[in-house]
């Protein structure tokens, strides 16, 4: 491909200097002992040259301290290409991204988390302001959107919530039943399942399901609306995206979650009841009587009350992530994933805070 002459002043090129043969060009450059000088390029044997091949020549010579002094015997269109490549080759070096070490990454992640939490709180504040505005001007409420969201969030989630809660109730009855039976305390299985699911399990379970269904959907919907500038269009039409998009979703989720939790309570108790009859010899009638006498209203109320807070948290996180998505297709996926994770973490964090607080007020 490349032959230096005996005097070390010119290079004879032959063969195909193209993208497809870069590997061979590289090998030939290494083998050829190119003298570090202004070289005369003799292109008599050159069959083809393209911009990649010409670049390999120019850069390969530069690496070896040589450059092209003049060219001879080049076909006109080969000369055009080599001249074009030499002409633009003064472009400055590209900028590499600085590498971050783990301390830096940790700090960066921490700062980013703090920013996210702050922006969630900020968004929650703006939601409150929008709801307050609604209280002053009830005419601005979007009842149609609210009803549509209620259907998506609540009605369409009913089957999956009921199924999952029913199965978990069954599993719990088995788990507790096998242990309690050893002490002849089978009947306490009813207390455990009823109180446990009403207070803790059903709210968490339902919140996780809703975070995956609706929290993610909010982010994806609002994110793609932002991508197509629909949200900006709303603003320019003097419509508030908060009132049109966010508040109906927030209210619908806050209303839906306690309703779904109530369904979850019933399904979990139903599941435990279904398992108790064959496993623990507790007939449904006895089971229901026991639930009636042991499950105080406060436990159910605590569960439903927590669901309201969880709902608000999921809606705020989901909508905020959607409204602030960056303007490219990838960030919708990233934001949606992060919404689900952060909703679940937020729900469990809030639940732990509730556990401590309720304990201290004696509920």
């Amino acid at each position, binding site marked *: 491909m490349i032959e230096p002459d005996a005097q070390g002043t010119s290079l004879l090129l032959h063969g195909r200097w*193209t*993208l*497809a043969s*870069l*590997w061979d060009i*590289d090998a030939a450059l290494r083998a050829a002992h190119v003298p570090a000088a202004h070289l005369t390029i003799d292109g008599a044997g050159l069959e083809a040259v*393209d*911009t*990649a091949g010409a*670049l*390999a020549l120019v*850069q*390969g010579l530069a*690496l070896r301290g040589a450059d092209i002094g003049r060219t001879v015997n080049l076909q006109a*269109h080969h000369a*055009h*290409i080599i001249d*074009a*490549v030499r002409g*633009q*080759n003064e*472009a*400055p*070096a*590209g*900028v*590499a*991204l600085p590498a971050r070490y783990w301390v830096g990454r940790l700090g960066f992640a921490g700062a980013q988390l703090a920013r996210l939490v702050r922006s969630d709180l900020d968004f929650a504040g703006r939601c409150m302001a929008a709801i307050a505005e609604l209280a002053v001007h009830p005419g601005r409420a979007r009842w149609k959107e609210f009803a549509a969201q209620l259907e998506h969030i609540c009605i369409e989630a009913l089957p999956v919530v009921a199924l999952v809660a029913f199965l978990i109730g069954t599993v719990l009855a088995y788990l507790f039943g096998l242990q309690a039976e050893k002490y002849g305390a089978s009947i306490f299985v009813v207390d455990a399942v009823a109180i446990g699911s009403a207070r803790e399990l059903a709210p968490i379970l339902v919140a996780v399901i809703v975070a995956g269904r609706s929290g993610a959907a909010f982010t994806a919907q609002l994110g793609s609306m932002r991508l197509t500038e629909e949200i900006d269009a709303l603003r320019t039409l003097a419509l508030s995206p908060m009132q049109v998009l966010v508040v109906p979703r927030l209210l619908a989720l806050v209303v839906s979650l306690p309703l779904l939790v109530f369904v979850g309570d019933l399904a979990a108790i139903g599941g435990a009841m279904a398992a108790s009859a064959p496993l623990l010899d507790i007939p449904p009638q006895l089971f229901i009587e026991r639930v009636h006498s042991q499950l105080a209203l406060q436990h159910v109320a605590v569960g439903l009350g927590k669901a309201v807070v969880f709902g608000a948290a999921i809606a705020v996180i989901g909508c905020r992530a959607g409204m602030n998505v*960056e*303007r*490219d*297709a*990838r*960030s919708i996926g990233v934001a949606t994933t992060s919404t689900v994770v952060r909703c679940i973490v937020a729900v469990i964090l809030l639940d732990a805070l509730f556990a401590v607080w309720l304990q201290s007020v004696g509920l």
Partner: protein
Amino acid sequence: MNAVEVQGVHTQLAGKIVHDGVSLGVPRGKIAALIGGSGSGKSVLLRVIIGLQRPAAGTIHVLGTDVWSARESELNALRRRFGVMFQDGALFSSLTVAQNVATPLREHSHVPAWLLEPLVRQRLALAGLPAEAAARMPSELSGGMRKRAAMARALALEPEVLFLDEPTSGLDPVTARGFDQRLRFLCDELGLTVLLVTHDLDTLRGIVDRVIVLAAGKVIAEGSVDDVQHTDDTWLHTYFHGHGT
């Protein structure tokens, strides 16, 4: 022989006839422009030619390969010989500009490691993009830079033919004319064949060798800009002269 040869293409989209017997040819080393009113099927025809949308009938030859009867392996070999620039760039949003340009090089050619970065920079320079844009993400680029980055990616594998969908739409006139000059340069100096879809009169008058006019699913005029603008057609007359006859 023509680099692109389209014969008797019929296309239907959702039951609606888009092309009713379209034939055209693009000679090697020339810049050809496809023009026509909105909805006249220009972009669809481009998709048919590059093998993304199957026509109901007709044949398309690109660089001598029959696009719609070629096997997948032949089609992929052909795809390495032409470059496509989509209207909004279609850059991979999870990769930087430099990685976008490097993707076809990494996948389809054996580039020695020391040469990859200079090669990417060369492609960016050919497309007229400043070197500092290389490390940026597509979401951080302006519309004009996105188009140039897409052009750099289309040029990555030394294509013989370049297909461009509205390369200058949404660009300011100065950037747009710069883009035109770069196309002319690629065509004259590197011998590329270019087929572009455009609405831009200045592109047509400035750099295009051959204009192909689509209307009502047919080619109604084909030839140099001068020939076409004196064709007796109301739409064309309004297009070139600003008012109907």
